[in-house]
């Protein structure tokens, strides 16, 4: 039961949250904080290096599918009302 305006605002909110995570794992964990994270080691991987060459990519895939889920739910609400 939502209006056009509300639909768009919710969409922008999702974008803001998901793109912050996108920025954090790639620009943040992969580059800016890489030296700090490299102090932590998980098996043979230094954590910063792992984010830069593996982790960030997995998170990207998950982010898109989360967005698909959120928007399908939002679309449904929007259509119920109209």
């Amino acid at each position: 039961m939502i209006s056009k305006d509300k639909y768009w605002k919710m969409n922008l909110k999702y974008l803001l949250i998901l793109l912050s995570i996108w920025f954090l794992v790639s620009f943040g964990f992969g580059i800016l904080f890489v030296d700090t994270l490299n102090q932590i080691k998980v098996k043979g991987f230094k954590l910063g290096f792992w984010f830069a060459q593996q982790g960030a990519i997995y998170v990207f895939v998950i982010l898109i599918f989360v967005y698909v889920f959120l928007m399908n739910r939002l679309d449904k609400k929007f259509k119920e009302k109209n």
Partner: protein
Amino acid sequence: MDLQFWIWTAVGISFSIYIGIAIWSRASSTSEFYVAGTGVSPIANGMATAADWMSAASFISMAGLISFMGYDGSVYLMGWTGGYVLLALLLAPYLRKFGKFTVPDFIGDRYYSNIARVVAVFCALIVSFTYIAGQMRGVGVVFSRYLEVDINTGVYIGMAIVLFYAVLGGMKGITYTQVAQYCVLIFAYMLPAIFISFMMTGNLIPQIGFGSEGQDGVYLLDKLDGLHRELGFTEYTSGNKSTLDLLFMMSALMVGTAGLPHVIVRFFTVKKVSDARKSAGWALLFIAVLYTTAPAVAVFSRTNFIQTVNNQIYSNLPEWFDKWESTGLIKFDDKNQDGIVKYVSDSSLNELTVDADIMTLANPEIAQLPNWVIGIMAAGALAAALSTAAGLLLVISSSVSHDLIKRIINPSVSEKNELIAARVSAFGAVIMAGYFGINPPGFVAATVALAFGLAAASFFPAIVLGIFYKRMNKEGVISGMIVGILLMLFYMTKFKFGWFGGGTQSDWWFGISPEGFGTVAMITNFLTSFIVSKYTKAPPANISKLVENIRTPSMDES
């Protein structure tokens, strides 16, 4: 069975499949030719996008690039995948809702201006031509390496195949051959990677394998870091480049990826808006399979390579070393005449020059895999080059037949004639691409980076503003695109080709490399658009409606 037999068999079978699909999926309308009749399922489109995206360079050079750059290579991995998040969240669903055929369609309609349309066509043509020249060359190189034919003969064979299915089937033919090509290329990439991972670490999954212990109980990455220190290189898991340059390079690659027209048009081919989102997710998943394997292959082959050749007696080296030495990809110069190979960072002592491509190409031999695997690798590399070339061809042909002829020169052209024009321009584009493949401009490698910078500097801001900022008008966007593109062209030609007085690394503005400059050009585009639009007339009321419409889901979709 001998090697040539397996290679010709694998290539022959895969090519027959592509031609069979092309005949089955002939296009009979402009909608089928440009956007496959918008009837492609999200998973199929995801696979087609992945094949479209991953070129000969991804297949052959990616692992080598990373193995030589170590941590610094991460910007390519994150940049070329992170762009899909932008595509899925900021561009694809809205452009699908808009529902026309091309990127210039959107820019021309949203900014109510044929000048904007022409600028967009111009950008699309430059981006696609710089990209396709490298692809046709790639087809020739793969043929000559695996099939022992002349590079030019390889380019002719590649042209004939692409011509057949792109001209006949348009987007419909291209899409379904790309699905087949994805399957071939990913199988060909994973098979040797899994073998090598198992051989070196006992783990079948390369992504986990390269974080595991080798046979001597030492973590593989620790061992590689140690070898690097010993030979005087920077540690594999740390980098050389400045943090600022890494940030700028990565964002230029991400934004450029999201702005490449041959990637964007793939999302016009699905049935509905929700499918456009879903299929971007599938596309990235299919791409991630290769992009998370490549860094593992990089570590395996680099460790293996250093251990096999460094400090070894030249005459005792394995057979594959001789073979690749004869192709010129490995060069050994025994400076101190002791018959022992020295591979070190100091160039006055180093005796070995290695081409990055070797890291993928020689893998099956280093791992002593059977000959049929090498046959499949050849088919996979060709699939990667052909699928990307075909996607680019379609953008070029639709820019001419649809954006220029139908929308500007002769709007009353019949559908039948437009379809003929589309086929004729696809034919012309193949010939031109072939010409560049046979007479490659010396700057092919540099121009691929240029294509990303250009896409980042032109399309990305224009499209994003068109969707998220209603007040943006034609004056703002046209000046933004022109300023962005010219600035990018200036910086690239100055530092890559030595125009405008040239310059070296020490002259880079703020220490930003030409590869990272796309980010600066993009920011300049955004700023110019904002400032100009602020002092010019707001767009007409019907544009506001158009934007509203692409932002909300349609009611008739289930």
